[in-house]
C-alpha cells in the first residue's frame, strides 16, 4: 500500500480541479496498543492499525463529506462530496480568511510509548494491579491502558499541505470495594502527550485510591440541597469545561439569534476575579497542536477576562459568520468525522487565595475532589466528584459518598467567590460532542469556592 504522503500529493492536484467553493481532505495513519485488566488478571492485549481519509466540500454554504478506509478511486470520492455539497447549498459560502500553509510538524517525543515493549508495559500495570489488590476489602479492579501514534495529512484547495504527528497515552485505574451487597468504586485517570514517563511512579496514587474505595463504602450519603462547595483543581477543571467551555464553542451560537444576543461580548458572567482561557498553542498538553483540522494555526483565547465574556472558539465558518477571527479550534476525533468546534486546553487562571483561607470561613460545606464525569445542556450542567468530604467549622471533616453537583451557567459562575493560587492541569480527560469521543483535551484550575451550589443526595 502506498504511504499517505504520496496519496496526499495526488489528492492536492484533484482538489484544485473541483468546481466547489472549497474542498479539503484528511488522510490518517493510526497505530494503537491497548491493554486491559479486569480483576486479578490481564483480560486483553491488542493492537490495531487503521488507515483512512475523508473529503469535505463546500458549495454555496452546503457541506458534503465522504469518509473511507479504502484509498482507491479517490477522484470518485471527491466528486461525491462535491455533489452532496451542491445538493445542500442554497446560499453563500462563508469561510474566514486563512493563509495557505505548507508544514511538516514532527512531535518532540521524549519516551516513545510505542517503543516501550509490551512486556514492560504489562509489568508496570501488574504492579499497579497488585497495589490495588493488596488493600483489604477490595472486590475487584479494572485497568484500561492505551497508547496511540497518529499521523495526519491535511490538504485543501487553497494550497495548504500540512503533515502532523502525535503520540498519546491514557490510563485509568479503578478499584472496586464491596460489602453486604453494597458496591463502591474509586478511580484515577491520567494521560500524557508524546511521553510514556508520566505513566510510571503512580504506585502511591494507586494505593490511595484503593484505600479510598474501601473508605467510601462505609461513608454516609450527603443530604441533598444547596451548599458552599470547594472544588479541587481536578474537579474545578471539569467544572470549567462543562459549565462554560462548551457554551463558548460558537457552533452552538453562530446561527441562533437569541443565543448570539445572550452571548454578546462584554457581558458579565462572573466576578472580576474570574479569568478563563482556552488554547492549543500552550505546548505539550493533551489538547495542544500547531494546526487544527482546518489548517488554521493554534492560538490562545481568553474566553472570560475579569468576569466578562471576551472571546469564543471558532472554526473558519463560525468565525466568518460572526465576523470574528478564527481561533484554530476545529477538530475531528479521526478521519471518520468532519471537524467541529472543540476545546483544547481549558483552564481558570490562578488567583491569590490559599486553600486554608478558602475553607476557613465555612461553617458547613462540601469539599469535592477528583472527577468521575460531567455533562452539559449549555444552560444547566452536572459534574461529579470521585472523592468528597464535609467541611465543618473551617476544617476538612469526615468523608462522604461521591456527589453529583449541578449548576446553571447564568448564576453558578457568578457564585464563584474565591480562586486559589494553585493551578494544576489534568491530562486524564477526554471530551465528547456530536458523537465524537473521547477527544484529547486537558482542563485545569486552582481550587475554587462556589456559594449556593446544588448537590444531589438523600
Amino acid at each position, binding site marked *: 500500500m502506498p504511504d499517505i504522503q504520496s496519496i496526499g500529493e495526488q489528492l492536492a492536484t484533484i482538489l484544485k480541479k473541483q468546481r466547489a467553493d472549497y474542498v479539503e481532505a484528511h488522510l490518517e495513519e493510526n497505530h494503537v496498543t491497548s491493554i486491559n485488566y479486569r480483576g486479578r488478571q490481564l483480560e486483553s492485549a491488542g493492537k490495531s492499525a*487503521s488507515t483512512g481519509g475523508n473529503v469535505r466540500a463546500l458549495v454555496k454554504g452546503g457541506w458534503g463529506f465522504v469518509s473511507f478506509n479504502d484509498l482507491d478511486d479517490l477522484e470518485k470520492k471527491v466528486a461525491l462530496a462535491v455533489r452532496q455539497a451542491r445538493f445542500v447549498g442554497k446560499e453563500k459560502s462563508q469561510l474566514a480568511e486563512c493563509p495557505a500553509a505548507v508544514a511538516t510538524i514532527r512531535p518532540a517525543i521524549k519516551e516513545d510509548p510505542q517503543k516501550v515493549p509490551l512486556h514492560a508495559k504489562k509489568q508496570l500495570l501488574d504492579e499497579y494491579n497488585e497495589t490495588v489488590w493488596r488493600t483489604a476489602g477490595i472486590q475487584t479492579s479494572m485497568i484500561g491502558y492505551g497508547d496511540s501514534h497518529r499521523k495526519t495529512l491535511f490538504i485543501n484547495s487553497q494550497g495548504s499541505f500540512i503533515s502532523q504527528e502525535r503520540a498519546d497515552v491514557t490510563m485509568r485505574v479503578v478499584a472496586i470495594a464491596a460489602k453486604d451487597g453494597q458496591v463502591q468504586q474509586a478511580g484515577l485517570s491520567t494521560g500524557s502527550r508524546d511521553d510514556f514517563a508520566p505513566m510510571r511512579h503512580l504506585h502511591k496514587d494507586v494505593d490511595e485510591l484503593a484505600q479510598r474505595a474501601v473508605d467510601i463504602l462505609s461513608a454516609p450519603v450527603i443530604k441533598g440541597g*444547596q451548599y458552599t462547595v470547594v472544588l479541587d483543581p481536578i474537579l474545578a477543571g471539569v467544572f470549567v469545561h462543562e459549565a462554560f467551555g462548551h457554551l463558548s464553542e460558537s457552533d452552538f451560537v453562530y*446561527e441562533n439569534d437569541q443565543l448570539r444576543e445572550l452571548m454578546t461580548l462584554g457581558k458579565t458572567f462572573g466576578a472580576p476575579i474570574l479569568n478563563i482561557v482556552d488554547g492549543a498553542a500552550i505546548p505539550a498538553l493533551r489538547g495542544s497542536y500547531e494546526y487544527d483540522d482546518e489548517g488554521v494555526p493554534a492560538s490562545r483565547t481568553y474566553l472570560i477576562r475579569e468576569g466578562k465574556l471576551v472571546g469564543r472558539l471558532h472554526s473558519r465558518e463560525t468565525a466568518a459568520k460572526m465576523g470574528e477571527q478564527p481561533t484554530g479550534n476545529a477538530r475531528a476525533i479521526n478521519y*471518520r468525522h468532519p471537524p467541529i468546534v472543540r476545546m483544547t486546553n481549558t483552564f481558570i487562571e490562578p488567583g491569590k487565595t490559599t486553600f486554608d483561607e478558602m475553607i476557613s470561613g465555612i461553617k458547613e460545606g462540601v469539599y469535592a475532589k477528583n472527577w468521575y464525569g460531567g455533562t452539559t445542556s449549555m*444552560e*444547566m450542567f452536572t459534574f461529579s466528584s470521585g472523592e468528597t468530604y464535609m467541611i465543618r467549622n473551617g476544617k476538612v471533616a469526615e468523608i462522604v459518598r*461521591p456527589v453529583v453537583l449541578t449548576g446553571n451557567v447564568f448564576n453558578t459562575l457568578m457564585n464563584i467567590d474565591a480562586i486559589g493560587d494553585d493551578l494544576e492541569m489534568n491530562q486524564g480527560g477526554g471530551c465528547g460532542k456530536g458523537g465524537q469521543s473521547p477527544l484529547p483535551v486537558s482542563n485545569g484550575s486552582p481550587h475554587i469556592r462556589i456559594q449556593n451550589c446544588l448537590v444531589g443526595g438523600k
Partner: protein
Amino acid sequence: MEEILDRAMKAADEAEVFIASTEETPVQFESNRLKHIQNKQSKVITLRIIKNGRIGYATTTRLDGYEELIDGAVATAEFGQKAEFAFPTRRRFPTIGIYDPAVKKVSLEQMAALGEEMIAAVTAESPGIMCEAGVTKAACEFSMFNSCGGKAGYQQTVFGLGVEGQLVRGTDMLFVGDHTSSCHPVLDTKEIIATVIRHLELAKRQAAVSSGSMPVIFTPEGFASAMVMPLVTAFNGKTVLDGASPIGNRLGQQVFDPKLTLRDDATIPFRPGSRPCDDEGVPCRKTDLITGGTVSHFIYDLQTAGRAGTKSTGNGRRGPGGLPSPSINALVFDGGSITFDDMVKGIKEGLVVEQLMGAGQGNILGGDFSGNVLLGFKIENGEIVGRVKDTMVSGNVYQLLKDIAAIGSDSKWVGGSLRTPSFCFSNVSVASR
C-alpha cells in the same frame, strides 16, 4: 478471508476472522435548514487467535498485506488471557428479518423532505425555536470464519429519523426532541412531531418544586436516562464474574418488585438490535433476565461463559474492532396496565422526569444515580402544571425497583435497543434551589 485464516493458522493453534463493513449516509439539518450530507464507508478486519492456550488479537482497516495483523495477534497472545472456550463449529441460525432493500433506495431528496417536514411542523408550533434534524440510512455486512469450521454472515439495514429543538427565551433554554429507528425505512414523521409538540406545550409554563421525597414518574425516556445503565452493567456476565454485580449471587431470588419482568431479545423482526447470530457466530435468542421480580439469567459471550462455567447467550459484541464482550442485544421491559394519564391523575404532588442529565456519572455499579432534570414537569392534584428546572433527582435503582408504585401501558422503543414503559415510584429524593 480464507487467505487470512490460512496464513494465521501457520502461526497459531486456532484462528477466527471477523469482518464488518458499513456504509452510512446521514442527512443533517442545523438551525432549521439542510446543512450536511455525509457518506461514511468503513471496513474493519479483526483476527483473534489462540496460541499456546492464550488469546491474541489485532485489527486493521488495511485491505492488503496481512503481516502486521498476524504479527500483532501473535505478539499479544504471549500475554493474553487463557482461552476458556472453543470456537463454534458450523451452526444453524434463526431466521430473523433485519434487511430491507428499500432502505438503500430511499433517495437524498426523500431524506431531505423528511427533515424539512419535521422542522416545518415544530417551528410552526413554536416560532423562534431552532431545530437540528437527522435522517440516516445505513447498511452493514458482517462475516466471520473460524478454524473449527464455523461460518456466519448476515446483512442488516437501519434507518433513523430524529429532530431536536432548542428554544431560548432570555437566559432560559428548553430542549425537546424525539427519534426513532428501524430496519425498514421510516417515512412517517407524525409520531415524532406529536411527541415534540406535546413537550413544547407542557413546558410553556414553569413550576416550582420543593426539596424532599415525593412520587416521581419516569417516562420511557426518563427511565432510560436514569435507571437502565446500572441494570445493563449488573446483568453483564463479566460484572457478575468479578463479584462486582449487586445481584451476582442472587440468581433465582426475588430481588425486584413482582411486577418487574425484563428480557434481552435479539429476535424481534426489523429492530436494529436484532440479529441471527452474535459477533462470535453463536446463535442469538431471547434471554429472560428478570421474571416476576426474580433474577433469571445473566448475559454471556464465549470466554466469559467459559470462565463462569456456563454457556454463551449469544451476546458477544465487538467494540470498535476489539475483542468480543457481553453486550445487550435489545432490552425489553414488560408493560403494565395503567395509562400514563391515569398515573398522573393518582398523584397529589410529584414530578414527571422526561430526561435526567448526568445520571450515569455516579456509582453505577452500586445502582446509585443522581442527575439534573433537563426536561421534567411538576404534578399538582393529578395534573401536569409546568416545567421544573434547577432540580436534582437522586436514588438507588435496587431500592426503587423493589417497590414499584405502577408500571405504565405506554411501552415504546427508546433508541435502537431498549423498549420500556413509564415507571412510577412513591418516594424519590428531589433537591431544588
